[in-house]
């Protein structure tokens, strides 16, 4: 399988990934370890919460989005990691049994000034459930290696 490099990420729609089924058990298990708030752990307490029913931790949803990106393309990309996330917006709760699709766009791609053998690709990822409801939007860069010896000899 060919490895995706910086040149494979021109601005525009990159792809749609999934579906990823999310079970009640994994929602409870993540919440118990990382986000043990009643609305993520307890059906009755969750009904009384503003989210009106059991929902996954927002950090769980972000982590699932990461996994969908790794399975979808990052796993076969010359990825060198990411410096951070510009913005995450949690728009609607992730419910047990939801099937997720992830739409990924490239917002911007530029060659790194400090490491010209790499580029910085800015992604916008939007995850939605089977009903088409948007659950979370994420804007985040990934550092990606350039093809062959692009940028070599320019320092870095």
């Amino acid at each position: 399988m060919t490895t995706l490099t910086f040149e494979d990420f021109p601005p525009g729609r990159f792809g749609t990934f999934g579906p990823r089924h999310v079970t009640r058990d994994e929602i409870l298990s993540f919440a118990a370890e990382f986000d043990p708030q009643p609305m993520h752990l307890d059906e009755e307490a969750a009904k009384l919460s503003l989210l009106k029913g059991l929902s996954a931790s927002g950090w769980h949803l972000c982590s699932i989005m990461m996994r969908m990106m790794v399975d979808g393309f990052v796993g076969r990309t010359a990825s060198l990691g990411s410096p951070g996330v510009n913005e995450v917006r949690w728009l609607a709760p992730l419910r047990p049994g939801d099937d997720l699709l992830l739409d990924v766009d490239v917002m911007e791609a530029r060659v790194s000034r400090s490491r010209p053998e790499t580029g910085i690709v800015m992604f916008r990822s939007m995850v939605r459930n089977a009903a088409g409801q948007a659950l979370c939007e994420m804007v985040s860069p990934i550092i990606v290696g350039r093809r062959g010896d692009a940028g070599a000899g320019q320092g870095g």
Partner: protein
Amino acid sequence: MNFFEDIEVGQRRELGSFTFTAEAIKKFAAQFDPQRFHLDEEEGRKSLFGGLAASGWHVGSVCMKLLVADARRLAKEAAARGERLAVWGPSPGFRELRWIKPVLAGDTIRFASVVEQMRTSDSRPQWGIVQIRNTGINQRGELAFSVLGTGFVPRRAAGP
């Protein structure tokens, strides 16, 4: 948890620390971020990270874990004083998440939170909106992690 009226810009909470073992790093990565530098020591050494590195989402999730534990401590203290409990609303998101230094196997990260901004909501007068900067500092005193989270905080005047 505090009500909006109990919070001030600049207020700081120490959230406690967490040691990222190789085992925990690999377990989280296998589930959510199976990139080679999060799964294998040798691959980590060859990467920009210079060692087996925790997924950034693992670091963020641990920060959340410590935030929830701190909120529980505050709730317990409030209950002991016989005070009414403030229940925060669901967060609409965060901005400016920075993975500044890699978190490597064996690193201990000390987390803290500082209130950066607060305002009332015109459309929802029973809620205030608070921006909180959560940071993580490693055992060498280096800032490794930072994120600006948003919270909906109930106002004291809103209830009985």
